[in-house]
Every structure is written in C-alpha cells, then in structure tokens.
C-alpha cells in the first residue's frame, strides 16, 4: 500500500520560518478484490481473461479510482518473475483480456487501482494500490465456439433443407417459383435496345470478386449477354475492378459463343474505368449522357453512387433494371428504376433464369429457412409478450432478460 503525508504548517505571521509547502496527500484507493485469471473462452488461444470486483472507491466511497493497470508475471517453481504492465482499463471496468500470451505458459496477474492526487509542483501524481495476485492461468485454443452453437444448428437446418430440395429437384419433381418481374423484363429490355439501335450498359456494382453480390450480378450478365448476342444488340460493360473485368470478359465471351455469335464478341465490350467510387460514377454518367443507351442494368453491390447512376439513366429515358442486396440503396433504385430485384431476388436470378432443377431446388430450401425464421419470430413475440405481462414491467433491466432474441444472438 502506498501512503504519504508529511505535513508541516507554518504559524501565521512567523516570517522568519521558511514556509514548508506541503500538501496532505489523500490516501490511495482501496484495491480491487476477487481478481481471477482464466483462459479466454471461444478463441484460438493466445489470450487470458482477467476479471475483478471493482475497488470500493470506484464510483463509490472516496470515488478516487481513475483507472486500473493490469500487471502480468510468468510463474515458476521458484516464484513469480517481475510484473510488467500488459494493459489498462478505465474506472468502472471489471474485465480485461490480455491478448498477448503464449499458450501453455503459466501466468499470474495483479490489478493495480490508480488514483490521481495533487502534488506540490502542480502536476498530479498517480498513486496506486495493488490487488492480491491471481492463481496461475494458462491460455489455450478451443475446438468449438460454444456461443455459435445456435448458428451452427441453423446452418445445418437451412443447408440440409437446400440440399434436400436440390436432390428432390434433380429427381424430376416440379417446383413452383413465383414470377420475378425484373428478370422477366430482361428480354424486353434487350429487345428495346435492338429496336432503337442503341447500346445496353451493364454495371456489375462497385465491389470486387470477394463480394457475393458481384458474383450474382455477373451470373445475370451471362444471361443478358446471351440475349444481346441473339438479338444482335450492342452491349457495354464498364467495370470498377480489374478482377471483375477479367471475369466479365470470360462470361460475356462464353455467352456469345453459346449464342452462336463468337465473332460478335470483342474484349473492348468490357472495360475498366476506375476503382474510385465517385470517379466510376462520373465515368458512367458521362458515358450515359453521351451514348444515350436505351437499357441500363445495375446488378451487384452499390453504395452512395447508386442514385447518381440511376437518376442519370432515368433522365435520358432509358429502361432500367436494378438489383442489389444493399438495403440502404434499395429505395433509390426503386424510385429511379423501372424494375428492381430486391435483396434475395438478386441471388435467385441465376436459378430463375436458367430454370435448372438443381438451382431451383436451392430456392425452395431458402423458403424453408424463411418459414423457420418466421416461426421463431412468432414464438419470440409470444414469449416476449407473455414474459413482459407476467413480470414487473417497471424493472426495465429485468425486462431485457425476457427478450428471446438474446437466445439467438451470434457472438
């Protein structure tokens, strides 16, 4: 424990005495108690979680705890080594995860409560008090993330349902798929471009190949390119990523080959503009205003550029079909485009357009997933409502415990 206090006060009016300016230092705070160290759960190893009960002076008592330092030492049969500070936590916190440990090494920890006190020089000085050391703790990796068990169960059910329906569809069973107006309009939109003798622009979003929406957009491009080849319409695909450019070229080339018009394809149909979001939007806006295409497709992931692109297309009277799974951009596309594939419809497009049984089966599996989630929502509503009714609703903290949504929370 630290403490200091030497105080001498000069008598008033005693000018001969050198005034010894001393300040009574307040006592240090009480230490944190019940300090424990254990392997951090649900990780790959390399971290130990330290918990403690807050000092009685943390937010209460003398209210002079400013922060906590966490000190660590390696334990050995001859005793603990030197303690080094491995981190800190502000007052009010009672947990710290030391993420820089070596698995299998025995560590012990101390939590140091710090308090800031005034000093004669004016600069506050930190005084500290240490807790008792913890027992020995080791870090280890876990083989299963227990807090994701609910997610695993859901994955198994949904994926199992998808695989089941794929198998059903493969065996020849008829599956009903509702109409998706935006996809039905593809032929009409391409046909219009042919009649008007104008271009079709296909924009596969602004993200790279690691985005599943981009993949979905490229899948639809294959269909659009095939129809464009059959109708002898002029197709242009300006892209914002190099890898997307390479992939789109392959897809368009293959589509023209399948349509029996390989000679009509050339690499300049798919070209790169820029990776920059607004540079890309400016480039496409310029192309749209100059070339006045009759049809515009926006299929993939979009951000703030979505409305800039769609409104420009709208201003020239082009028929526009959009599809994205970015919820914030959907209202913009709905307002500015003739047809919009909303969220899941974008991912369903490949199955819908190809009519391949295996792919259609996966859509049916999705529907089962939706039914399960719907049921869970209904059960949640009932349980939360009855839970709230059967308890003292003035205790808001307790009310949170009745939220069934917490059971499904994935950490």
């Amino acid at each position, binding site marked *: 424990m630290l403490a200091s206090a030497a105080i001498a006060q000069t008598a008033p009016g005693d000018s001969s005495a050198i005034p010894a300016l001393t300040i009574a230092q307040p006592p240090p705070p009480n230490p944190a108690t019940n300090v424990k160290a254990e392997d951090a759960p649900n*990780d*790959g*190893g390399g971290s130990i979680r330290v918990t403690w009960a807050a000092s009685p002076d943390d937010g209460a008592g003398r209210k002079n705890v400013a922060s906590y330092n966490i000190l660590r030492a390696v334990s050995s049969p001859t005793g603990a080594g030197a303690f080094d500070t491995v981190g800190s936590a502000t007052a009010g916190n009672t947990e710290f995860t030391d993420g820089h440990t070596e698995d299998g090494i025995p560590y012990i920890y101390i939590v140091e409560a710090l308090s800031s006190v005034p000093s004669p020089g004016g600069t506050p000085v930190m005084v500290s008090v240490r807790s008792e050391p913890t027992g020995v703790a080791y870090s280890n*990796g*876990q*083989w299963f*993330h227990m807090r*994701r068990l609910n*997610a695993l169960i859901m*994955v198994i059910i*949904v*994926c199992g349902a998808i695989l089941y329906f794929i198998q059903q569809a493969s065996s020849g069973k008829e599956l009903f798929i509702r109409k998706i107006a935006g996809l039905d309009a593809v032929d009409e939109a391409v046909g219009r471009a042919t009649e008007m003798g104008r271009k079709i622009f296909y924009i596969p979003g602004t993200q790279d190949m*690691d985005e*599943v929406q981009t*993949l*979905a957009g*490229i*899948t639809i491009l*294959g269909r659009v390119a095939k129809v464009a080849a059959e109708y002898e319409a002029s197709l242009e695909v300006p*892209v914002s990523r*190099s*890898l997307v*450019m390479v*992939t789109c070229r392959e*897809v368009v*080339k*293959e589509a023209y080959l*399948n349509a029996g018009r390989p000679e009509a394809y050339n690499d*300049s149909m798919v*070209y*790169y*503009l*820029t990776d920059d979001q*607004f540079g890309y*939007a*400016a480039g496409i806006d310029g192309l749209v205003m*100059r070339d006045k295409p009759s049809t515009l497709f926006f299929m993939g992931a979009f951000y*703030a*550029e979505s*409305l*800039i692109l769609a*409104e420009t297309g*709208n201003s020239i009277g082009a028929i526009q079909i959009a599809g994205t*799974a970015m919820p914030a951009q*959907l209202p913009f596309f709905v*307002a*500015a485009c003739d047809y919009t594939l*909303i*969220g*899941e*419809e974008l*991912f*369903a497009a*490949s199955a819908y357009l*190809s009519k391949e049984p295996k*792919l259609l089966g*996966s859509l049916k599996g*999705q529907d089962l*997933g*939706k039914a399960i989630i719907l049921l869970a929502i209904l059960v949640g509503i009932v349980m939360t409502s009855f839970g709230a009714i059967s308890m003292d609703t003035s205790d808001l903290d307790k009310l949170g415990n009745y939220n069934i949504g917490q059971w499904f929370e994935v950490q």
Partner: protein
Amino acid sequence: MRREIPTAIAFFVGIICIIQFFIPHRPFGTLVDVFSDWFGIVAAFAIWLGALNLLKVSLERSLSKKKTHDRWYGLVVAASFFLIFIIGMFMSGGDQFQVPGSRFDYLYVNIYTPLSSTMFALLAFFVASASYRAFRARSWEATLLLIAAFFVMLGRAPVGDQLTGFMPEGYRLSEVANWIMTYPQVAGQRAIMIGIALGVASASLRLILGLERSYLGGE
C-alpha cells in the same frame, strides 16, 4: 480442367471459411486472414490489368479518326494518368508520396478531393428529383409512402415540434417520426435483411458445391 480447378479451389476455401467460423483453434482461426491476404495480393497485381486497359481504351479514343468529344475525353484521361503516375512515382519523395506537402499530395488535395466531393454533392439534387417522383401519389403504396415521408421529414425538423407543441406527449411530430423509423421501418428492413441472409447462404452453398459455375464463363 479450366472449370474443375477453380471449382475445387472455391470448394476448399468456402469450406474452410465455414469451419473457421465455428472452430477458433489454430490453424482454422487464422486461415481466413491468410486467404484474405492472398486475395489482396492477387487484386493488387490485377490492378495493372485495369490500369493498362484504361490507358489503352483512352489512347485509342484520343487517336481515333472519329471527330467526337470522346477524343478529347480520352486525351484528358491519358494525360491525367501519366501526370499522376510520373509525379507519384518519381517526383514525390519515393515512399513518402502521401506525406502532406508532397507534389502527389498537392494533386490529391486540390484536384482529386474536390472532384470527388462534387460528384458526391450531386447526390443531394438527385435525392430531390427521385423523392419527387417516388412521392407522387399514383397508387395506394405510393400514397402511404408519401404520408410516412411527410411525418418523418417534418418530424425531423424543429418546425415539426413547434407546430404540434400543443399535442400531448407521444403524439408530437418528432415522436411520430421516431415511431415510424423505429417500428414499421425497422420491421420492413429486417424482413429484407432476413431474405438477403438466406439468399447469401443459398448462393454461397451453390458456389461452394459447384452447382453455380456461370461466373467461370458458362451456363
């Protein structure tokens, strides 16, 4: 083999990504970072494909015999490309090119940033024109949207509460706007999000299992 190898890679990487979500133990927990690094490396090399393609297309346009504005636009792009490339690579202190005060930084701050800001600012005007179209009460849904938008926009402005200050608490415009944004809006958003999540799961499963291979170039 042109299809089989990419499909096998997609299967292997996809399965590992799923496994690592549930198994934090090494090596699974760190493999996704490794794959992510590899993607970054491949994408970084591939940027040259895009950059050279842009240069090729721009030069072709600027050298074209067609007397259109495209010639000049192509020339501007090509000249800008060389300007920023030469200044960034050779005239901005090597790897210190991003340091404030360097020539590259000067171009970035005084040309690139204002151009980007201008494009972003256009969004405000486009929001106005799109809102005007969306809020025309041509159908039952559009009318509902118009009414909701009326309450939300007015409720988010100070004048909303001034107009309804005489109303009992809970019925003032700002509170009505908050209610619309907290309940009907969130409910609709969540329905879309659930659909998207299942769509992503289904699409990913098709890609991992190789059922969906059209992105490799084919039906």
